[in-house]
């Protein structure tokens, strides 16, 4: 048999947590080619940003993603502050780092659970998600929210930390560190786990560079690239930390990088809380932003996130461009998938920690009569339909 079979997966599929379409060309159980189609989650946020004020944009941008919401919010405020040439208080910078690193811990623990689940190691999923609650509680203590923290504002942060909150946080970090060390031990020594992910989804270093991989995906292939160190933002220039890399290039390498980064993140949060500068947390800035442009980078849990903001002197931005890390990592995923087994698809796709909400950002929906025609609906109708659910025929 020379003919290859095409296996479509998605956009809605039990294997995927978010809508994305894969077209695999397969020969027996082996993947010969892979193709991706995006856009199922596109919400037109970049266009919507042009119609709203900077402050409104901040809260909308924070909702691009539910996991790395602080990433997008911080990146956007940093861009606006750069255009305004505003210097924010150092206490605010440290507090931004605290939330950012707690977010990284929560995201990496979440990933570890998902990875465990995808390879049928559900105990790991249960344990890591149980311990993730500790960091979620800490985020709630610091910001008031478990997700979409609302911590940032243009000119600083919105909430300060009291001495009591700092000690609660340090106590939580202690438990978290013990548990993460346990997970590190599992990732390094547990035979069931290692034999399932060793040599799976290999991404060679040269492909990772030429295809623009970022974050733990790139670092798991030996690419030494971390925005926190290479182009420091917020308070990262003053904080000592290590960049974790692995030369393995497979799913195991990416796991080791993420577990190592979680431990580093705990150290960073502890350093920040112990060295928190005194002073105000916010500076007052005008509502209008002068003409200008800025590009800001941020090391999100999944890799480099970049925002490009152009201001035209009014209360609303002229252009906001967002590139989330998953977008960069999707280019190289084809190379990870080729020559692998169908059964390995879930873990290879999960290994880049895909976040489709971040990647896709027009409300075009199928007509309610079930025909293939589409219709464009306004915000009021969308809301109405969300509240009064009418079944599709």
């Amino acid at each position, binding site marked *: 048999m020379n003919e290859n079979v095409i296996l479509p997966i998605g956009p809605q599929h039990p294997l995927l947590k978010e809508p994305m379409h894969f077209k695999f060309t397969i020969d027996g159980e082996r993947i010969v080619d892979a193709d991706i189609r*995006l*856009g199922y989650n*596109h919400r*037109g946020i*970049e*266009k919507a940003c042009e119609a709203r004020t900077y402050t409104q944009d901040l809260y909308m941008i924070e909702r691009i993603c539910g996991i790395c919401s602080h990433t997008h919010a911080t990146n956007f405020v940093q861009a606006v502050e750069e255009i305004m040439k505003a210097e924010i208080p150092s206490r605010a910078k440290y507090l931004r780092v605290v939330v950012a690193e707690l977010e990284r811990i929560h995201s990496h623990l979440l990933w570890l659970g998902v990875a465990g689940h995808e390879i049928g190691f559900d105990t790991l999923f249960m344990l890591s998600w149980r311990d993730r609650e500790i960091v979620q509680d800490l985020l709630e203590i610091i910001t008031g929210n478990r997700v979409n923290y609302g911590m940032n504002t243009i000119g600083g942060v919105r909430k300060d930390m009291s001495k009591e909150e700092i000690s609660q946080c340090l106590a939580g970090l202690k438990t978290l560190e013990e548990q993460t060390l346990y997970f590190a031990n599992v990732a390094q020594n547990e035979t069931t786990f290692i034999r399932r992910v060793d040599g799976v989804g290999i991404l060679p270093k040269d492909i990772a*560079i*030429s*295809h*623009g991989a*970022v974050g733990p995906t790139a670092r798991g292939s030996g690419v030494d*690239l971390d925005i926190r160190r*290479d*182009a420091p933002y917020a308070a990262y220039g003053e904080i000592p930390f290590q960049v974790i890399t692995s030369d393995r290039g497979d799913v195991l390498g990416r796991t080791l990088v993420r577990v190592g980064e979680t431990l580093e993140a705990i150290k960073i949060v502890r350093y920040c809380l112990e060295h928190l500068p005194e002073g105000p947390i916010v500076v007052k800035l005008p509502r209008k932003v002068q003409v200008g442009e800025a*590009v800001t*980078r941020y090391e999100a849990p999944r890799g*480099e996130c*970049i925002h*490009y903001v*152009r201001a035209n002197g009014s209360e609303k931005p*002229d*252009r906001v*461009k967002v*590139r989330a890390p998953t*977008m*960069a990592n*999707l*280019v190289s995923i084809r190379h990870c998938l080729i020559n692998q087994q169908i059964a390995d698809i879930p873990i290879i796709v999960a290994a880049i920690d895909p976040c489709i909400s971040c990647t*896709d950002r*027009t409300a*075009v929906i199928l007509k309610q009569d079930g025909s*293939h*025609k*589409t*219709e*464009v609906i306004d915000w009021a109708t969308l809301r109405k339909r969300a509240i009064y659910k009418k079944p599709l025929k």
Partner: protein
Amino acid sequence: MAKWIEVPSKDIRKWVSELIDSGKYKLLSTISAYQEAENIFIVYHFMITEGVINVRTVVPLAEPRLPSITPVLPAAILYEREIQDILGVSFGEIIDGRRLILPEQWPQGVYPLRKDFQTPKEEQYK
């Protein structure tokens, strides 16, 4: 501090391949594009060994065409396809020119991020 430079649109591929040959290339972060009056500006954001560099190029709105950099740098593929969808810039010799984010039924010649964008009417959909 980030460096900003301007490169004519016809020379962009040459510039990128020279950057790669020089060994300074680290990462193409993304490609941004925006419309200003009768021009579309395209900005390539690179990380290089010396830091960060943003390369700006311009194409007229009447003929938005420039060479694709994907033959020398595959990392650019999704960014070029996105700009093709949202601003209608065509990249010559792009290795894969299909739609990326807009649905198949989306009318031809309607680009959401252009300043004169109007929500398409129902009959415009295929």
